[in-house]
């Protein structure tokens, strides 16, 4: 790295806020910290926390002065830095949690994150330098008309999960508001149970209510099964009957089977 002649080596003096940081946008707090470390040419394994924190906070001030929004993540990092700084003031003592005499440097996790982040930033530069389709290299993305035909109706589609969910999200966004309830994971497992129960009832005259709860006996399973039964009743897809008080409840399908 070429030292910037305008910048004093290391840290000019304690009360200087004149530490000029370029106003280029940083991707996030880690990006900014790495920039400060490189600019000051300090060892990443031995970061002078007090000085770097000060410059970091100066930068946040500068952003505010320029009326730039300081994202929450920058503030979280600021408090992390201050916390590390105060821990550094305490004498390093062996970690009471472990038996050995290893001393945990308060900066260790931050250093690891910075190194890791730097590595992925390097990886992104490698990606950017590749021959990118539609920027550096071009291919034919069309078929000649004689091959560009509709796939037969029974062909397997090529879609991924995200497209499916995103399509549902779009529908709900424009659907009448009263028409849906929150689709959470519990509802989905109810859907699973509904499908299972219908399958179980298929071709049977009637079954005992308890039979529907045979399976993995987790609380989640029982709740889902129960809600599935309620939902099926509401949809009038099953009928419940009881012949005596406190007697067995029988469940039968109220679905007219399609002739196969």
């Amino acid at each position: 790295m070429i030292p910037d002649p305008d910048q004093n080596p290391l840290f000019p003096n304690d009360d200087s806020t004149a530490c000029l940081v370029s106003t280029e946008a940083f991707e996030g707090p880690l990006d900014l910290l790495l920039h400060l470390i490189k600019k000051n040419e300090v060892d990443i394994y031995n970061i002078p926390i007090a000085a770097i924190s000060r410059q970091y906070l100066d930068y946040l001030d500068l952003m505010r002065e320029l009326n730039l929004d300081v994202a929450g993540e920058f503030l979280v990092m600021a408090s992390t830095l201050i916390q590390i700084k105060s821990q550094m003031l305490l004498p390093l003592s062996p970690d009471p949690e472990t038996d050995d005499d290893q001393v945990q440097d308060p900066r260790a996790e931050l250093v690891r994150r910075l190194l890791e982040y730097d590595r992925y930033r390097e990886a992104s530069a490698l990606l950017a330098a590749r021959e990118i389709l539609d920027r550096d290299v071009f291919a034919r993305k069309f078929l000649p008309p004689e091959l560009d035909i509709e796939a037969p109706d029974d062909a397997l589609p090529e879609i991924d999960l995200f497209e499916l969910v995103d399509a549902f999200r779009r529908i709900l966004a424009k659907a009448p508001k009263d028409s849906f309830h929150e689709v959470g994971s519990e509802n989905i497992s109810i859907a699973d149970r509904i499908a299972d129960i219908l399958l179980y009832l298929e071709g049977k005259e009637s079954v005992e209510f308890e039979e529907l709860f045979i399976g993995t006996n987790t609380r989640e399973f029982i709740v889902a099964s129960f809600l599935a039964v309620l939902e099926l009743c509401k949809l009038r897809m099953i009928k419940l009957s009881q012949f005596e008080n406190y007697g067995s409840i029988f469940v039968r399908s109220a679905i007219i089977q399609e002739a196969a």
Partner: protein
Amino acid sequence: MMSDISLKQIVESIIFVTDSPLTLDRLCSILEEFEREEIREAIASITADCRANGRGVELVLVAGGYQFRSRPELADYIRRLKRVKPARFSPSSLETLAIIAYRQPVTRAEIEYLRGVDSGGILKSLLDKKLIRIIGKKDIPGKPLIYGTTREFMETFSLKDLASLPTLREIEELADSGDDTDQVPLPLDGTDELF
């Protein structure tokens, strides 16, 4: 003109990536630093090369423009490709499939209420693809059919069970989290790259 790039290469690659025949006029307007005659020669030279080297494609003049086409003798082989073209899914099929996946068991009326349009044709095609099935009929007046997804549906999306479908909330969290989609700042002169 750069040293190791020939006009012939430029012309070849431009015709190669274009999805319709390119006229000489258009080529000349794209490559304005070259003479029309030079470009014409490059085309002639490419045409001759394709023949001389026994290539599988040839440069032909169709509808007033130049285009690479596979040699007619190879048509039998090319046609075999047809069978392997994967099906594309229309947005409306996707919508309908999504509704069935998340709201099953569901009737056609409910699907159409959500989508706001007739969905009979799409249901038919999803049934043909075996992605959905008729679970049965609802025992209410009109006896509407009830739809659900199939085992093939799970396989298509590599789903262990329906509970592994991402929840709507998870997708909404992505969509809502700020407007920091990767909007690239506008380049000043419209040509420069970001990196």
